[in-house]
């Protein structure tokens, strides 16, 4: 009989049990440093648990799981809970060597901490070297701050020098010596600034340096939870909220109620009303472009001219044209000081606001049917230059990139972050291309109908997570951008829907224009209209070339 009561603390019971098992009082186990010994015993006895897994899929290692929980408890400030967890589970957060190391750092036992570093179980020599350097650098600065210049110099020479990654590093440290002595001779020591960081800060830096198997990284549990939430959010095809409310209690899954699905308004009598009718073009208007401050609007009459209008007054500020060739597209420079335009002789030209032609890029750069897009930094100009290809040329670097398609391109649009291009093809099919860095095809969207007209599509919704397009079957199609899934078909129009525009500031509002001669505003299908923030439709939201055949 052991003679130990059942309500004795667990650690004591284990210790006694161990002695009984081993039987030898001079056993090396017992001569371990008293600090953390009971935990050590537990850890060794529970060796078999090291491979234990938990969770329904059997991929979570129990030891790791408990350790990151303990770490989280400590980070949250619950030291007692953290310690209790370590004891109760028998799974120490850190090995005894690491615990010792941590204490040595905080106590300033530099030499000992470096020694411990070597026995901590690091496989990578360079890590040992970098960590040693950090520790001794701390020692150096603390000595300096304490006024012990000679000691600091000795440390630098004998201990640090061979650890320096470069001679620059050594020189930098040496310069501290010089400036210190200089400072000391000039004024009192009060004026010298503390160079050494705090010891907890040093510990944190060391923690980041050491591999996660030695020291569990800070906030690992938080990181894992955030990863899961991000994955859930990305997988949620209807996610279109302005608020960032995701609960941990259940997997995040929005309902369809966040996607515009109901007609709020037909025509221009309603909350969205007709502001101006801009007359002046003699040919159909093919495209419009808003200035970045939404104060001006450019319109292009096909193979005719480009007109600039003042949005608030409706007045035509300027007409841009060339004698001879007609203009086919238009776009603002982001600084609002220049106008770009595609010409039907395939060139692209640039004017200043007064109408003076500033530049002309000749060669095959655009087609009569092309859209024109300019990036927000004003550097890249994009247009359809061949039946199946889009040209992206950087006017500053004078370099060109090309997107090659396998079908004829009808139109395209640029994402707000300028990293993606949405290309409409005759198919009909919509292709999403990444143009940031390497050009590559990211996604394809299908389902809508097109045989005769230019049907436009656009990005939209919260984080531009959706793609919307018109269709010749009179419906508005909405896909979830990431998953390519068709999530909505909005019915209501009685003619081909030629273009759509998603409100850039209200992710719950969409506008569409149709051959039935109307514009429809779409919104959420909720009875409780809590988000009735719609007071004023942001001008950019209405950027649609609604009148193709008309002249206004």
């Amino acid at each position, binding site marked *: 009989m052991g003679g130990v009561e059942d309500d004795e603390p667990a650690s004591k019971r284990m210790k006694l049990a161990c002695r009984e098992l081993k039987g030898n009082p001079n056993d090396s186990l017992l001569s371990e440093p008293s600090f953390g010994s009971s935990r050590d015993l537990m850890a060794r006895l529970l060796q078999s648990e090291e491979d234990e897994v938990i969770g329904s899929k059997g991929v979570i290692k129990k030891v790791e799981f408990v350790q990151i929980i303990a770490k989280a408890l400590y980070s949250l400030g619950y030291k007692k809970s953290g310690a209790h967890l370590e004891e109760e589970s028998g799974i120490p957060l850190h090995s005894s060597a690491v615990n010792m190391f941590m204490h040595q750092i905080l106590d300033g036992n530099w030499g000992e901490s470096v020694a411990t570093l070597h026995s901590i179980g690091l496989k990578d020599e360079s890590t040992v070297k970098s960590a040693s350097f950090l520790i001794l650098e701390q020692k150096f600065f603390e000595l300096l701050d304490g006024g012990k210049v000679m000691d600091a110099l000795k440390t630098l020479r004998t201990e640090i020098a061979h650890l320096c990654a470069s001679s620059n590093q050594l020189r930098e440290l040496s310069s501290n010596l010089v400036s210190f002595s200089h400072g000391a001779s000039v004024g009192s020591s009060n004026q010298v600034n503390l160079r050494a960081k705090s010891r907890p800060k040093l510990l944190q830096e060391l923690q980041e340096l050491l591999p996660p198997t030695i020291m569990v990284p800070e906030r690992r549990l938080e990181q894992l939870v955030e990863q899961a939430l991000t994955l859930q959010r990305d997988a949620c095809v209807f996610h279109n909220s302005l608020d960032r409310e995701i609960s941990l209690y259940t997997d995040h899954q929005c309902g369809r109620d966040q996607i515009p699905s109901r007609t709020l308004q037909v025509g221009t009598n309603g909350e969205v009303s007709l502001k101006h009718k801009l007359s002046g073009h003699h040919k*159909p208007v*093919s495209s419009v472009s808003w200035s970045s401050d939404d104060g001006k609007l450019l319109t292009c009459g096909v193979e005719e001219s480009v007109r600039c209008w003042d949005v608030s007054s409706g007045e035509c500020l300027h007409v841009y044209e060339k004698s001879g060739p007609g203009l086919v597209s238009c776009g603002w420079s982001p600084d609002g000081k220049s106008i770009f335009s595609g010409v039907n002789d395939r060139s692209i030209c640039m004017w200043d606001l007064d109408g003076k032609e500033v530049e002309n890029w000749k060669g095959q750069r655009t*087609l*009569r*049917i092309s859209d024109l897009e300019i990036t927000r930094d004003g550097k890249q100009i994009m247009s359809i230059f061949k*039946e199946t290809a889009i040209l992206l040329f950087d006017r500053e670097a004078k370099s060109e990139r090309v997107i090659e398609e396998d079908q*004829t391109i*009808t139109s395209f649009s640029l994402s707000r972050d300028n990293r993606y291009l949405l290309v409409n093809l*005759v198919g009909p099919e919509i292709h999403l291309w990444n143009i940031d860095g390497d050009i590559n095809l990211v996604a394809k969207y299908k389902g809508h109908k097109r*045989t*005769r*007209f*230019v*049907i436009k599509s656009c990005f939209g919704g919260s984080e531009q997570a959706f793609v919307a397009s018109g269709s010749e079957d009179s419906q508005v199609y909405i896909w979830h951008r990431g998953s390519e899934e068709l999530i909505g078909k909005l019915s209501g129009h009685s003619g*081909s829907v*030629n273009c759509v525009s998603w409100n850039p500031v209200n992710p719950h509002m969409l506008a569409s224009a149709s*051959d039935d001669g109307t514009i429809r505003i779409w919104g959420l299908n909720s009875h409780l209209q809590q988000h009735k923030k719609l007071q004023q439709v942001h001008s950019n939201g209405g950027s649609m*070339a609604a009148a*193709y*055949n008309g002249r206004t």
Partner: protein
Amino acid sequence: MGRLFVVNLEGKIYSCKHCRTHLALCEDIVSKVSFHSRHGKAYLFSKVVNVTMGEKEERMMMTGRHTVVDIFCVGCGSIVGWKYETAHEKAQKYKEGKSVLERFKVSGPDGSSYWANHEVSQHVGGSDADDV
């Protein structure tokens, strides 16, 4: 109406007689002599643009059974010819994917038009006859 999407061709162009929409290039003609329609001559082209397609139909032609679709000009909607989807006889496979434009329905590269040849109208509409 929405904005028509039309491809603009360069070179010697055959275009729709009614609305001048470009339809095909001279260089894409595969055969000028072998095809006839109700209205007379028709040319086989390897590539035709700015057309929409009708429903698939099985048609018995002089050279055998074919699956064809009628093709219509996107500009005005008038029928301009047909396209071979499938040829059921091996010897006719070369026609698959190619389109026939009726000479009567198009304006030639020099702007010329063609008047229906009434003698040929005895054929069943849309048939073709291959000269050996």
